[in-house]
């Protein structure tokens, strides 16, 4: 356990976070990457969240990417907030940071890099800098073989969605606001219908 904890502490995540802090502001980073205004605004939020929520494994750009992907999978709608508000990325980050199997972390690091790579291949930009339509098109593409994933990006989508969905529907927002779950409370009588 001790050994594991130390190795978790020395992940690149910490280094990168310190580097970002040195830059002074997330906006600086976004600007230096030459992103569009709306994407910059989103990224700013993402990076700021990553830094302030103390991501333990994801780098700030990775954290922002996970937040965006999770919100695309379970978005806010008129009924309830989505994955971002439910802090799904922070939960996944915490689990990966302490994961016993290094392969769990590699899967995510490689998977997120692959998403960006695929985005560059099609739109010439990393995922977060591509247009909403381009993002949707890419996610739709890697989601299409969900039942029988073949390609690495399809396997990553299954992993991504599995963790996002579990994290969202075990969150307070998922349980209480989206599903309006009424249980886990003391009832004087059982609820249900009478026989016959």
């Amino acid at each position, binding site marked *: 356990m001790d050994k594991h904890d130390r190795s978790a502490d020395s992940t690149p995540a910490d280094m990168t976070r310190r580097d970002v802090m040195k830059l002074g502001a997330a906006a600086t980073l976004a600007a230096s990457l030459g992103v569009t205004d709306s994407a910059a605004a989103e990224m700013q939020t993402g990076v700021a969240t990553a830094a302030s929520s103390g991501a333990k494994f994801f780098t700030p750009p990775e954290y922002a990417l996970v937040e965006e992907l999770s919100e695309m999978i379970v*978005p806010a709608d008129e*009924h309830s907030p989505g994955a971002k508000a439910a802090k799904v990325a922070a939960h996944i980050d915490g689990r990966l940071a302490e994961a016993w199997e290094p392969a769990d972390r590699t899967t995510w690091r490689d998977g997120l890099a692959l998403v960006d790579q695929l985005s560059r291949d099609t739109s010439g930009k990393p995922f977060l800098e591509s247009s909403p339509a381009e993002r949707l098109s890419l996610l739709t593409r890697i989601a299409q073989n969900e039942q029988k994933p073949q390609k690495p990006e399809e396997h990553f989508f299954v992993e991504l969605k599995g963790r996002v969905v579990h994290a969202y529907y*075990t969150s307070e927002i998922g349980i209480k606001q989206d*599903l309006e779950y009424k249980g*886990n409370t003391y*009832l004087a009588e059982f609820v249900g219908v009478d*026989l016959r």
Partner: protein
Amino acid sequence: MNILRLLLQRTQPPEVDLLRTYDAIVIGSGAAGGMAAHVMTSQGMQVLMLEAGKKLEIDKELKSMEWPFDHPRRGGMPPGHHPLSLNEYTIRQPPYADNVKAEKVYSYVQGWNGADYSKNIVVNEKEHPYTGTNYAWVRARCLGGKTNIWGRLALRLSDYDFKAKSRDGYGDDWPISYKDIEPYYDRVDEYLGISGVKENLPYLPDGHFQRPTRLTSAELTLRNSLQKMNRILTPYRAGVTTDGLKHNKYRSRCFGRGACNRRVGGCDIHAAFDSPTGLIYPAMDTGNLTLRTNAIAREILVDKNTGKARGVSFVDAESGRTYEAKAQVVVLAASTLESARLLLLSKSGTHPNGLGNSSNHVGHNFCEHVMGPGVTGLVKERIGKPRTLDDGRPGGFYIPRFRNLTDKHPRFIRAYGFEGSSGTQMFPGNATDTPGFGAGYKKTVRDYAGAFISMGGFGEVLARYENQVDLDPVRRDKWGIPVVRFNYRFGDNEKKMCEDMADTARDMFEQAGFEIVGVDRNVLTEGWSIHELGTARMGNDKKTSVLNQFQQSHDAKNLFVVDGSSHVSASCQNPTWTIMALAWRSCDYLVSEFRKGNL
């Protein structure tokens, strides 16, 4: 709750006195051991109970009301702790923890909300290996054993089970009839509490039921539809006190807090029966029970002149030191497979094949329930409807057996029943299965979350002599004790029964008007039901059985084996209530024989 905790703290065990000869030693503290302690101590016998595991602060383990988001890992185990998966049990061979890198490896038992709540209750497989054929063997080494996490379905057997051989010619009849055990089922109902609805079925006798749970509208639809097929759906008969028990200060009545299945079945207000609060603490209050935890029974010691049991050698789980405790009677209740293991470990000059094993039947006739086939249906009227509270109850429904009652099925003998439920749960199972992503996905999950109904079968596995466990000649556990080796497989009858299970499940849902979402035809790995039975069966013939009708050894009359190992056949009904009724009956006999000086 604070008052309850204070009461529990007051029940401190007296120290075990190794110089003294106790009236009886009970090995094991689960349903059978707890009942043996209750029956003997309430009639004045001085009893020492040996439990291999710890006395846990169980409410701190179960945390029945904790929201998933208040758990640091949403119910998941800490890094380095690994619960075995179905896949591992299927594609790998025991010992399952071998070559697993994780620090601690646990058997599969867990709810959807993760295995963290059961990790201190079930054993670490690295310390408790076993060998041989595939088997998902769940062991709970702590005070109360598996009763801390059981599924709570509390059913009676009938003469369709006890006299099954007389009906179809297979195997052996039990040495008792329903009328022998009926008064003891009644006593178990009254003493521990049970919820249910009377149905007047000869093959699933009614009990003394407290307030029943209620069905969802979809379940009532299925019940009404089944009546046309001459089949029954009844609300879950739960070993849960729904009205409370005036004679038991450790247990509250059920408050339908729901989500009982998000953990592993445990209940921190102890409305669901568990052996510590239901049986052991009240037995300690008599002043006649001494409890020694962390005491791993290593051997039942035998008087070399009389061949009778004289005590138990046990290893302290923490220090590894060996001790001997003495008693006039030994009651073995360590669970079906651990009891067989201990009998086989107890070799002596008078019992060269193991204690009570002159028949060579110890470890044989091992049977259980086969699981896997089932069905999930969609109740279209429920889609998009306002949220209802459907899991505020300890269980859904039970469909008792219907095969081989009056008819004779052409392909298999014996029968199966179904357990199922419907409606909303804290975690929407359909979130995992619904394809896609985005606003449409989210709305579909929400609209459909309460609209599913599902059930799965539990079928009788025939008792066969060749299905057995023995001791591995090489492998030892952490304390140097030889481990169990499995030689056990499902047979042809089970496979054919499972095919029928899947077909009838689908048919019943279709008849009820549910849209079929999925039919599961896969048979789960041996052991999945956690209903091991039969390794020291009762019988009238000492050449083909280990125990008589009072669970008393044919070979050593002051040795009783009161757990599921005594069962002659598995039936298809869940065994816990029968284990306790039989133990009560046998221990009543034991006390009277003890008084007469016959033991």
